[in-house]
């Protein structure tokens, strides 16, 4: 009897530290976020008064629509870029090729560079006066004026490029480990049936990689929606709001305008929005596997 008791509580004891962390850092803050969003609170989270839905008013403004649009562009183009470049790389690295071990190591490096330093390095590489890209292009006579990569016209495209640079290795790693699970016989059989090259990729590889792609794609999507440090370091959301995404707006509302309620409403909206997309992607995946 005593032994049975012990057996039943043991897994919970092992899980307790993880549960404590999840409750303290995720559950309680999310609950607080919920009531913040309906209240007036001061900077350190003390309740002042209820505010009804007034904190959510921002969600009906033109400024929000624009931010949402920019965020969607950032997410869609970022993921599309990661998908194309990462898939090509994974396929190039999948089969034996001289130097593969070395290339595999190097290809992944952007992934281990923290976002902030990816930001400082690329800001300098693409600097409009002294950056190496501009000085080289000027030297080669390809451009007459230095390109203002972080000016209001190109800034969003530039940060998307840097996002792709940082995100590709994750995609490559996901696909490489999935590609290894494709049995050799599948390839042989497909080749006998005349499926080679792009045809082979489209009809054999892609369907087999789909579950992993959806899983990794969902995670990338969720991260992309809310990346803060990369953009904050490179542009701070500027110039002229050109790169102001949801995460930057949340930050500004909370820590610059001291509008905690407004920040909470927007954060909650973002969280729910991302969760809904993630849920549908994953659900689809689970259904297919069954």
């Amino acid at each position: 009897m005593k032994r049975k008791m012990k057996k039943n509580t043991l897994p919970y004891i092992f899980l307790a530290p993880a549960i404590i962390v999840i409750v303290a850092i995720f559950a309680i803050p999310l609950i607080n976020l919920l009531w913040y969003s309906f209240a007036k609170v001061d900077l350190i989270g003390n309740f002042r008064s209820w505010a009804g839905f007034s904190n959510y008013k921002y969600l009906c403004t033109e400024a929000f629509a624009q931010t949402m649009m920019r965020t969607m562009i950032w997410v869609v183009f970022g993921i599309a870029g990661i998908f194309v470049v990462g898939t090509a790389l994974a396929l190039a690295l999948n089969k034996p090729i001289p130097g593969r071990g070395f290339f595999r190591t190097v290809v992944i490096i952007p992934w281990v560079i923290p976002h902030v330093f990816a930001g400082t390095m690329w800001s300098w590489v693409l600097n409009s006066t002294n950056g190496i890209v501009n000085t080289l292009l000027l030297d080669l006579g390809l451009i007459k004026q230095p390109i203002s990569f972080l000016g209001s016209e190109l800034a969003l495209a530039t940060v998307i490029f840097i996002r792709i640079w940082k995100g590709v290795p994750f995609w490559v790693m996901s696909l490489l480990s999935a590609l290894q699970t494709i049995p050799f016989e599948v390839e042989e059989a497909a080749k006998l049936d005349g499926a080679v090259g792009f045809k082979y990729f489209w009809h054999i590889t892609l369907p087999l990689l789909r579950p992993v792609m959806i899983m990794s794609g969902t995670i990338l999507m969720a991260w992309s929606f809310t990346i803060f440090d990369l953009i904050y370091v490179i542009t701070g959301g500027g110039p002229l709001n050109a790169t102001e995404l949801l995460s930057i707006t949340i930050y500004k509302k909370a820590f610059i305008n001291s509008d905690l309620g407004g920040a909470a409403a927007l954060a909650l909206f973002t969280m729910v929005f991302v969760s809904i997309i993630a849920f549908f992607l994953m659900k689809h995946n689970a259904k297919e596997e069954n």
Partner: protein
Amino acid sequence: MNKKRKQKQIRDYIIRYIVIVIWVIIALLPIYVAVMTSFTPFEKLGERMLFPKYFRWQNYVEVATQTPMWEYLKASIIYALGTSIFTIVISILAAYALSRFRFRFKTGFMMLIVAIQVIPQIVIVTPLYGISNSTGLYDTYIMVIFAMVASAIANPILLLKGFFDSITSTLEEAAAVDGCTRLGALVRIILPISMPAITTAFALSFFTGWDAYLYPMILTSSAGKVSMTVGLSRMVDIVTPWNWVMAGTVIAIIPPILVYLLAQKYLIGGLTAGSDK
């Protein structure tokens, strides 16, 4: 026939090499430029150069003596090691429970672990700031570490659970007969053969801890708790002596690259172990 095949293989190689080499150049370009710039004198920064020309190592001395670089580095090491140590201990325990026991809410807990991966720091940092103030944990290392552990924990748990699943439980049963407790069996039998997975978990959580930016920025205020990420990004804000910023950046990216190179053997398979069952 054979010749044709050989030709095809060469063409195949060439296409693949083009893809790989273009990416390698793009991947390494900012790092190469950062290293080169970190040795360039300030007044030569605008010079058009593709190959290293200067070797002004004093940039590093200056950045170390005239900015609080050592303080930043110390804080970053505390955050990164703290995050990885707590993450590893907590995820080993949780993964072992998920792998070896049957209990209620097991599936629910697994789903929870998958779900917390998508909770963004920017969403919870606002209430976390309030909580850290009301609990007196504002401006402490432990608050930042604790918060980072939550962000870091999901992948190691899934990864270690997958690894533990692949180990037969016969060894532990034998140990139990000899009077060994569950925890004893875990520590003495499972952990020694799980080093590849634990190494991966360490590397992953180290990267998360080293990447910390928003939490140290918001949840701390004293000078000693400014991490490399926060410190260097502030340096960009001011007048930007780019040779200093690049010297600092080079120092800051060495630890994660080193950890990566040491753990690399296990990483590629390990990262996604959780996601494809």
